[in-house]
C-alpha cells in the first residue's frame, strides 16, 4: 500500500528559497487552484518525479518538469533565475515512513540519483537517520539492489511478476506501467483507459497491468510457467553433463555406452537396466570377470620359464601376428588421415577463392547502386542510347541465354560456399574420428610390443629365471581390472544420478500438466464479475449516456478492458462519456482490488478530471463515490476552481470528508529558512 504523506518543493534563487510544502491525508485530497497555470501541474509532476514515474507524463528526467524548476521563477514583477531546485516526497507503506529527495537542477548531482531517508521530512538533516543513494532509468535498475524501483517494490510489498518482453526475454513488469493505471495525468491520460502508459517493450502490457492489479491467477500461471521452463532447462543440462562425463571416461578405457537416453525421460527400472557399458562387445561385468579369471590362471602358472617354454613361443607368434595386423591397420588409417588433410587444404583454398569472389561481387553490387544514384542507365540494365533492356555483362553472348544478375551471382556463390564448408566440416569430422582410432591403435601396439619384447627376452633367458612376460601380463591385467572397476563404480554412480534426474523430470512433467491451460479459475471469474459490476454501477452514477443498456457492457476476457458486443467501448462513447468511462474504470479497479484482495497500492491521482465540459453534477457524484470508498485509500484530485459550479460542488461535500490544499496564485511562495 502506498500513502503520500507530504510534498516539499524547494527552489533556490538569489533572493532566497521559494517552495511549496503541504501534507496529504487519507481519503479525498484536492489540490485546487483558482485559475489555470498556477503551478498545480508542477506540483503533481513533482510527485511523479520523486517516485521516478515521470515516464507517465511522457519523458525521462527533469525535462518533464516545468520551467519553474529549471529556468526562472516569477515573483510579482521580478523574474528570478533558478540556481538549484529539488523536491522531497514523504511516503509511507502503512508502517514505515521514508522521504525521497530528487534534484531537478543541481550542479554536480545527477538527476537520475534519488536519496532515500528513512525518516519523515522533518528529520532529514538528522545525522542518526539512515540514508541511501539509489538511481532510476539506468539499465537493470528494476532488478539491481541500488535501483530505486527495486527498492520501492520491496517497500510497497508488491511482488512484480516476470513477463514476456518484446525481444523474447522475460523482464520484470515495470512499476511505471502499473502506476499508469493509477496516476492519470492531464495531457494524455484522459485519451483512453490506460493511455498514459509508457512504451517499455513489454508484450501486452495493458493486459499484464490489469492482471497484476486484480491479482488474477493467470499471473500466477505465468510465474509458474517461467519457473517450470527454468527447471526444465536445468534438468536437461544436468542430464547432458552426466552422460557426457560418462562417455568421455568410457572412451578412455575403450568402452562403449549403449542404449542410453539422450534426452530426459522418465526411466523405469527396465530402462535403467538396459543402459549398459560394453568393451569389445561384451558387457563390462562379464569382461571384468573374464579378466579376473585370466589373472587367476596366470597366478596358478608357475613363473619359471622352463615350465612355460612352449606356451611362451606360441604366445609370441600370436602376439607378433596381432602386431602385424594392427600395424597394417595403423598405416591404412594414417593414409586416410593424410588424404583427409589434403582434402581439407584443397577445400580451404577453394573457399578462399570463393570468398574473394563474393567480396568482389558485393563490390560490383555496391558500384551498381552508386551508379543508379547518379542515374546511370547501365545500372538499371538499360542501354543508355536506345533504352533497350541489356544484360549486365560485357561478354558478348547469345541473347536467348540469360545471364545471372549480380545478386543472383552472389546467392549462387554463397550457396557454393556453404556447400564447400559443409564438405570441409565432414572432412574435419572424419579426421577427428581417424585421429582417435589412430591413437587407440598406437596404444594397443605399444602394449603388444612391450609384451612381445618381454616374451622374447623370456625365450632367451636361462631356464631358472622368472618369466618376465608373465609378470608383465599380470601387471597389465591388474591395472586393467582396476581401471575397469573404477569405471564400473562411476557408471553405477552416474546411473543413480540419472535415476534422480528422472524423478525430477517426472515431477516437472506432473507440475506442467497441473497448469491450467487458458481457462480462468473461479476466483478470477469472481474478480472479473465484480469489476464489471462496479464499473457499470459507476457509469450509472456518473451519468454515462452513450450506451442505452449498460448491462450489455462486458469485461473482455482477452484484454480485461470494457467492451460492448465485442467492440471496445470507446467507439460508442462521446468525448465526455469517455471521461466518465475512465473515472468509472479506474475507480472500479480500486474498488475490486479492495474487495477481492488485489495488488492495488490504494492511491490514485486524477489531474483535471473535469475534461470536455463535464456536467457538474456528475463530478459531484464522482467525488461522492470516492468519499464512500471503504478501505484505506488515498485519492488526490488536481482541480481548477475557476467557475462557481465547481466551487459549489466542492463546498457541498460533507466538511470532514476531504482535504483541500489551496494553491494561491503562483504556487511557489517565499519560504522561511526553517521550513
Amino acid at each position: 500500500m502506498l500513502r503520500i504523506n507530504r510534498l516539499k518543493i524547494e527552489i533556490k534563487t538569489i533572493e532566497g528559497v521559494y517552495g511549496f510544502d503541504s501534507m496529504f491525508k487519507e481519503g479525498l485530497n484536492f489540490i485546487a487552484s483558482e485559475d489555470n497555470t498556477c503551478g498545480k501541474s508542477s506540483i503533481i509532476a513533482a510527485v511523479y518525479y520523486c517516485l521516478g514515474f515521470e515516464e507517465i507524463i511522457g519523458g525521462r528526467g527533469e525535462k518533464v518538469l516545468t520551467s519553474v524548476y529549471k529556468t526562472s521563477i516569477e515573483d510579482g514583477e521580478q523574474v528570478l533565475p533558478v540556481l538549484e531546485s529539488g523536491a522531497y516526497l514523504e511516503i509511507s507503506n502503512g508502517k514505515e515512513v521514508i522521504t525521497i529527495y530528487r534534484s531537478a537542477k543541481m550542479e554536480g548531482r545527477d538527476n537520475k540519483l534519488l536519496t532515500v531517508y528513512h525518516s519523515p521530512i522533518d528529520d532529514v538533516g538528522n545525522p542518526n537517520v539512515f540514508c541511501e543513494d539509489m538511481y532510476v532509468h539506468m539499465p537493470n535498475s528494476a532488478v539491481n539492489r541500488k535501483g530505486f524501483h527495486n527498492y520501492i517494490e520491496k517497500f510497497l510489498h508488491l511482488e512484480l511478476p516476470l513477463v514476456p518482453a518484446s525481444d523474447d526475454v522475460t523482464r520484470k513488469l515495470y512499476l511505471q506501467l502499473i502506476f499508469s493505471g493509477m496516476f492519470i495525468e492531464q495531457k494524455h491520460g484522459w485519451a483512453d483507459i490506460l493511455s498514459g502508459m509508457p512504451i517499455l517493450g513489454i508484450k501486452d502490457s495493458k493486459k499484464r497491468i490489469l492482471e497484476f492489479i486484480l491479482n488474477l491467477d493467470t499471473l500466477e500461471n505465468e510465474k509458474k510457467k517461467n519457473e517450470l521452463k527454468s527447471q526444465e532447462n536445468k534438468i536437461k543440462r544436468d542430464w547432458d553433463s552426466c552422460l557426457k562425463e560418462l562417455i568421455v571416461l568410457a572412451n578412455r578405457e575403450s568402452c562403449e555406452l549403449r542404449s542410453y537416453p539422450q534426452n530426459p525421460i522418465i526411466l523405469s527400472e527396465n530402462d535403467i537396466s538396459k543402459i549398459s557399458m560394453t568393451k569389445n562387445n561384451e558387457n563390462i561385468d562379464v569382461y571384468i570377470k573374464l579378466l579376473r579369471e585370466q589373472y587367476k590362471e596366470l597366478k596358478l602358472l608357475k613363473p619359471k620359464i622352463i615350465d612355460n617354454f612352449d606356451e611362451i613361443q606360441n604366445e609370441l607368434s600370436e602376439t607378433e601376428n596381432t602386431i602385424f595386423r594392427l600395424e597394417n591397420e595403423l598405416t591404412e588409417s594414417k593414409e586416410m588421415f593424410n588424404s583427409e588433410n589434403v582434402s581439407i587444404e584443397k577445400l580451404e583454398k577453394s573457399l578462399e577463392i570463393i570468398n574473394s569472389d563474393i567480396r568482389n561481387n558485393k563490390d560490383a553490387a555496391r558500384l551498381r547502386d552508386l551508379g543508379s544514384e547518379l542515374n546511370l542507365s547501365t545500372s538499371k540494365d538499360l542501354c543508355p542510347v536506345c533504352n533497350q533492356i541489356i544484360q549486365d555483362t560485357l561478354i558478348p553472348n547469345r541473347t536467348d541465354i540469360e545471364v545471372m544478375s549480380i545478386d543472383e551471382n552472389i546467392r549462387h556463390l554463397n550457396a557454393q560456399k556453404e556447400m564447400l564448408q559443409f564438405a570441409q566440416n565432414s572432412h574435419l569430422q572424419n579426421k577427428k574420428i581417424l585421429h582417435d582410432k589412430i591413437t587407440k591403435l598406437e596404444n594397443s601396439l605399444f602394449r603388444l610390443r612391450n609384451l612381445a619384447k618381454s616374451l622374447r627376452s623370456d625365450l632367451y633367458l636361462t631356464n631358472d629365471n622368472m618369466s618376465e612376460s608373465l609378470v608383465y601380463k599380470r601387471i597389465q591385467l591388474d591395472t586393467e581390472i582396476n581401471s575397469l572397476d573404477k569405471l564400473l563404480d562411476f557408471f553405477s554412480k552416474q546411473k543413480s544420478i540419472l535415476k534422480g534426474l528422472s524423478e525430477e523430470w517426472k515431477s516437472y512433467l506432473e507440475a506442467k500438466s497441473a497448469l491450467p491451460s487458458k481457462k480462468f479459475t473461479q476466483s478470477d471469474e469472481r474478480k472479473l464479475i465484480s469489476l464489471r459490476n462496479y464499473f457499470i454501477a459507476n457509469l450509472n452514477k456518473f451519468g454515462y449516456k452513450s450506451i442505452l443498456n449498460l448491462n450489455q457492457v462486458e469485461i473482455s476476457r482477452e484484454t480485461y478492458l470494457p467492451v460492448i458486443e465485442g467492440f471496445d467501448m470507446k467507439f460508442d462513447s462521446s468525448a465526455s462519456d469517455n471521461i466518465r468511462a475512465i473515472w468509472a474504470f479506474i475507480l472500479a479497479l480500486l474498488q475490486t482490488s479492495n474487495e477481492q484482495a488485489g495488488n492495488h497500492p490504494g492511491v490514485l491521482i486524477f489531474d483535471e478530471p473535469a475534461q470536455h465540459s463535464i456536467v457538474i453534477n456528475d463530478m459531484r457524484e464522482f467525488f461522492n463515490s470516492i468519499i464512500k470508498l471503504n478501505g484505506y485509500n488515498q485519492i488526490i484530485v488536481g482541480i481548477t476552481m475557476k467557475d462557481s459550479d465547481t466551487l459549489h460542488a466542492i463546498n457541498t461535500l460533507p466538511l470532514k470528508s476531504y482535504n483541500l490544499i489551496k494553491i494561491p496564485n503562483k504556487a511557489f511562495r517565499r519560504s522561511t529558512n526553517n521550513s
Partner: protein
Amino acid sequence: MKNYIIGDEIVFNPKPDAVPYNYRISYKLAQICLILYNCCGRSGGSLIKLHMISIALSTTDDMKKLEGFANNERTHYTIVRLDPAVNHAVKYALADGLLFQQKNGLFRLTKKGKTYVKNINKDFNLMKNERDYLSRLADKLTEEKIKTLTSLWRYSNVED
C-alpha cells in the same frame, strides 16, 4: 541396338550463366573511371592505356609486371593484351556521360564521372586493392612509354 533415350522429347531449360565479376558493366565502368582519375592527368588517357591498366588489374602478377614497366625496371614487357570488354565499357561510359573524348582521341572524366569516383572513394572498403594499386601507379605510365611500345609493333611486325 538398345534404345537408351527415355522418351521422344527431351526438354532442356537453360539455367542462367554466371558472369565473372570484372565483366559486369558497373565494375568495368568503375575501373575505367578510377583509372582515368588516378593515372591520367589533365591531358587525358588513351584507349591503349585504359586497356593496359585494366588488364593488369586482373591478377597480382600482371599488376607487378606493369608496375615494373612503369618504373623502368623491366625491359621485357612486350605483350599488350587488348580486351574488347574494355571497348564495350568505354562505349557505355560515353553514352552514360561519365567520360568524354577529346579531339586528340584521349578520354577524360566528366563532372558526373568525377562525382562517381568521389562516391566510390567515400566507401573505405570498396575496390580497395584496385584503388591502392592505382594510386601507387599514378602518373608513372606515361603516354610516351606506351607510344614507344606501340611503335615497336609497327616496325617489328610488319614485313615487306
